[in-house]
């Protein structure tokens, strides 16, 4: 196996469709034997939240209350219709045998995909480590992401 048989995905977007694509591609990379790392930043962190109410300051608590509490609450980037779109797409995906976002995330975990969370975004959003799922391996900065990406055959920004 080559030394750089690695894949690095930056997940900035927190839309259902973007997160769906990110976990699907990561599954494909890990299934192909690549050492796969997903770096979650800004809205992407919503895909890792564990359902806790978040925020310390008044504004942080407002942000926490308005954002999705966990992966099942992510809305699509189009046809959101105040949450109706999510219900509609979830049903259409389920009817067609497409895995849910939570199932895809678990598949990534089972295949050994590494989840890293961006420290700065967590500070801005007032998220603590314990507000994220335990499978998050580390809270890191951009240098860690760059180090991983510079050694990867595949680098994606989603």
């Amino acid at each position, binding site marked *: 196996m080559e030394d750089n048989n690695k894949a690095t995905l930056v997940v900035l977007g927190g839309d259902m469709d973007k997160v769906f694509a990110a976990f699907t591609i990561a599954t494909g990379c890990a*299934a192909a034997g690549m050492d796969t790392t997903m770096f979650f930043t800004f809205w992407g962190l919503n895909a890792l939240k564990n359902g806790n109410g978040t925020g310390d300051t008044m504004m942080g608590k407002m942000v926490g209350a308005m954002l999705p509490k966990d992966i099942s609450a992510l809305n699509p980037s189009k046809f959101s219709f105040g949450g109706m779109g999510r219900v509609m797409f979830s049903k259409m995906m389920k009817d067609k045998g497409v895995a849910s976002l939570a199932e895809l995330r678990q*598949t990534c975990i089972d295949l050994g995909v590494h989840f890293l969370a961006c420290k700065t975004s967590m500070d801005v959003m007032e998220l603590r480590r314990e507000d994220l799922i335990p499978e998050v391996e580390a809270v890191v900065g951009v240098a860690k992401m760059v180090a991983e990406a510079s050694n990867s055959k595949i680098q994606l920004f989603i």
Partner: protein
Amino acid sequence: MDIKVDKVQDSIGQMCPMPIAFMAKNMRTMEIGQVLEIEADDEGAHADIPAWCEQTGNEFLGEEDAGDFIRYYVKKTA
């Protein structure tokens, strides 16, 4: 197809990327030389399974039309 199969994976009704995810998981538990049969009806799997074999260095032995689904045979060689 006259192939001795060591393990059968039922991926009927599954869509991308699940047939490949389960194939990767199953192959990790198998020995070199063993054969995995994947039963799948997703059209995407038709291109995905040989592509996965090529990338991972495993051998794609072939496929067999079973009517509503296709049987794919993959030998662990890597």
